[in-house]
C-alpha cells in the first residue's frame, strides 16, 4: 500500500520534483550536501562563535601551533589561522559562486543566441566560442588576470570569462534539438516570440545542464581562485582566501615547520571541492533523462 501511494504521488510531480526525489535517495550525494552545508554554515557564522578577527595581530603568538586559544594556530604575523580560514572561505566561496552565476548566465545566453539566432549568427558565435576554447586556459587566465589586476572583482571577472564557452556549447546543442520539437513548433504556431521560447521552453529544458554545470563549476572556480591567488594574481593579502593562505607554503620553512598554516586551508579546499563534486554527480544522475523512463 505504501508502494502504491508513493508511485501515485511521484506521478503527480513534475520532472524537476522527480529528479530531486531521486537525488535524496543517493547516499553519497547527501553526504556531500551535508558536508557542504556544514562548511557554508561555519564560514558564514564564524563571528558569532569565534572571538578573533582575520586581521587581528597577536604579537605574542607568531607562528604558534594549535592551542586552546588559537585552535588552528597562528601565522607569521600573529593572525589567527581559524579566523582567516573562515574569512578566506567566505571570499573563496563568494568568488566561486558569483563567477559561476555570471558564467552560467553568459553561457546560457550565448548558447541561446547561437541556436535561435539563425545560421549566420550561429556560425559567427560558434567560431568565437571555438576560439575561446582553443586558447590555452592557463595562459588566457594569466593574461586576463594581469590585465584585470588583483582583488575580488577582477578575480570574479577572470574566472567567469574563462568558463562559459563549454556551457554555451551544451546549451546550444540542447536548444537546437529543442527547436525542432513539436511543442516548441506549437508555441511558435501560437505566436510565441523569442523571449517566450527561451524562457518558457528553453530555460526549463536546460535546467539539468545548468544545475549540474553550475555545481561542478563551483568546485572548479574554487580551485581556479586558489590557483590564481597562489600565484599572487587573485585575492591579494591582507584579504584572506584559501588560495592566498596556501601561498604561504611557498616558503620551505612554513612548509616544513608550520604545517597548520597551509594544511587547514588545503584540507578545507579539498573537502569542499570533493563535497561539491559528490553533490554535482548526484544531480547529474538525478537529472539523467534515462532515469525517467521507468
Amino acid at each position, binding site marked *: 500500500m505504501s508502494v502504491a501511494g508513493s508511485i501515485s504521488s511521484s*506521478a503527480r510531480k513534475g520532472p524537476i520534483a522527480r529528479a530531486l526525489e531521486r537525488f535524496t535517495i543517493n547516499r553519497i550525494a547527501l553526504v556531500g550536501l551535508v558536508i557542504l552545508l556544514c562548511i557554508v554554515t561555519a564560514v558564514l557564522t564564524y563571528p558569532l562563535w569565534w572571538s578573533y578577527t582575520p586581521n587581528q595581530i597577536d604579537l605574542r603568538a607568531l607562528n604558534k601551533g594549535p592551542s586552546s586559544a588559537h585552535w588552528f594556530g597562528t601565522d607569521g604575523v600573529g593572525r589567527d589561522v581559524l579566523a582567516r580560514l573562515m574569512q578566506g572561505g567566505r571570499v573563496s566561496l563568494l568568488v566561486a559562486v558569483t563567477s559561476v552565476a555570471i558564467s552560467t548566465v553568459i553561457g546560457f545566453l550565448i548558447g541561446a543566441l547561437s541556436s535561435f539566432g539563425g545560421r549566420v549568427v550561429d556560425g559567427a558565435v560558434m567560431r568565437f566560442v571555438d576560439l575561446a576554447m582553443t586558447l590555452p586556459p592557463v595562459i588566457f587566465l594569466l593574461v586576463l588576470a594581469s590585465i584585470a589586476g588583483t582583488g575580488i572583482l577582477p578575480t570574479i571577472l577572470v574566472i567567469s570569462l574563462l568558463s562559459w564557452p563549454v556551457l554555451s556549447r551544451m546549451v546550444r546543442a540542447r536548444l537546437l534539438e529543442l527547436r525542432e520539437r*513539436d511543442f516548441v*513548433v506549437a508555441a511558435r*504556431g*501560437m*505566436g*510565441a516570440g523569442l523571449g517566450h521560447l527561451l524562457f518558457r521552453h528553453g530555460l*526549463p*529544458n536546460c535546467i539539468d545542464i545548468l544545475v549540474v554545470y553550475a555545481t561542478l563549476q563551483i568546485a572548479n572556480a574554487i580551485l581556479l581562485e586558489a590557483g590564481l591567488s597562489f600565484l599572487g594574481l587573485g585575492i591579494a593579502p591582507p584579504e584572506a582566501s584559501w588560495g592566498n593562505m596556501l601561498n604561504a607554503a611557498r616558503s620551505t620553512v612554513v612548509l616544513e615547520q608550520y604545517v597548520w598554516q597551509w594544511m587547514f586551508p588545503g584540507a578545507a579546499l579539498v573537502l569542499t571541492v570533493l563535497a561539491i563534486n559528490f553533490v554535482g554527480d548526484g544531480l547529474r544522475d538525478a537529472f539523467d533523462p534515462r532515469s525517467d523512463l521507468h
Partner: protein
Amino acid sequence: MREPLLSVRGLTKHFTSSGFSHGPVVRALDDISFEVPRGKVVGLVGESGSGKTTIGRSVLRLIEPTAGQIVFDGVDLTKLSASEMRRQRRRLQYIFQDPFGSLSPRMTIGQILMEGLDIQRIGSRAERGARAKKALQEVDLPADAFVRYPHEFSGGQRQRIGIARALVLEPELIVADEPVSALDVSIQAQIVNLLRSLQSRLGLTMLFISHDLAVVEYICDTVIVLYLGRIMEIAPSEVLYSDPRHPYTRALLSAIPSPEIGKASARQILKGDIPSPANPPSGCVFRTRCPHAIDQCAKTVPPLEEVAPGHVKACIRHDISG
C-alpha cells in the same frame, strides 16, 4: 459564392541542405494550389514523404515557402511582417501527429492549454483559466487533468489535450496533421469522431491530413491526393471514392481492404518505391510506378485538368477507365 477561407496558390518548397557544401535540393512541394472553403473539411492524402506536413506547416508559416501564396481570409500570409503574422496566428491552429512530442513534459496541462492565451495576451488570468477548462471539457477530459503533467496520460488522452490546445484560441482554421496515425486503431475512431463533432458544432474549417484514405472519406468534404510533392487529383469525397480518375488514386483505393468479394481480385498493388524528392522523375512524377505510363508521360508535366465541376486530375491519358 463567398471566397474560400484558405487559398493556397503555387506553393513550392525546396529544402536546401545547410552548411558550406551544397547537397541535393529536396523538392518537397512543387506548384501546389488548392482551396479550403469556409466551414468545410478538406483532406490531404498521400504516402509518407509526399509533402503533407510541409504543406500543413507552410500554411501556418511554420515553414517559409520557397514560392507561392498562402491567402487566408483575403490576406497573403507570406507577405506579412513577423508582428502582423503573430496577430494572425490565433486564427490558425495546428494539431500534431505525435501525441508524445507535442506536449511539453515540463508543463502541466493547464499551463499547456493557457500558453496560447498567454502568448496572445488574451483575457485576465482567471479568464484564461476558465477558457482552458472549457476546452478541456470540449474534448471530454476531466477537470482535474488541469494540474497534471502529460506523462500521466495515454496517447489518446494526449491527443485530446493537443486538440484542446488548438481550440483554446478559438481559431477559424485548423490544420490537423495525421491526428490519429500514431494512435491505436481502437482509439482512432474516438478521436476522428471527436474532431468531426467539434468541427460541425463550432463551424470549424479544417485541413485534415492523413495517409489513410479510409479515415479521410469519413470526415472530409473534398480530398486532395498528393504524390511526391505534386497534386494528382482533387475531388469531392464521394466522387473520389466512386469515380477516381487518376491512376495513383485508383491504386491507393484498391489497396484499401474491401468487403466486396468481387473487388478483391481487381486489386492493383503499387509496385516499386517512391522516388526520392531530391531527384524526381521528369514529366509526370508518378510514371515510374504507373501501370498506364507511356513515352509522352516522361516529356510533359501533366497539368491539372477539370474532368467534372470540382474534380480535377493531373494525368495526360484520358482513355483509361477503371
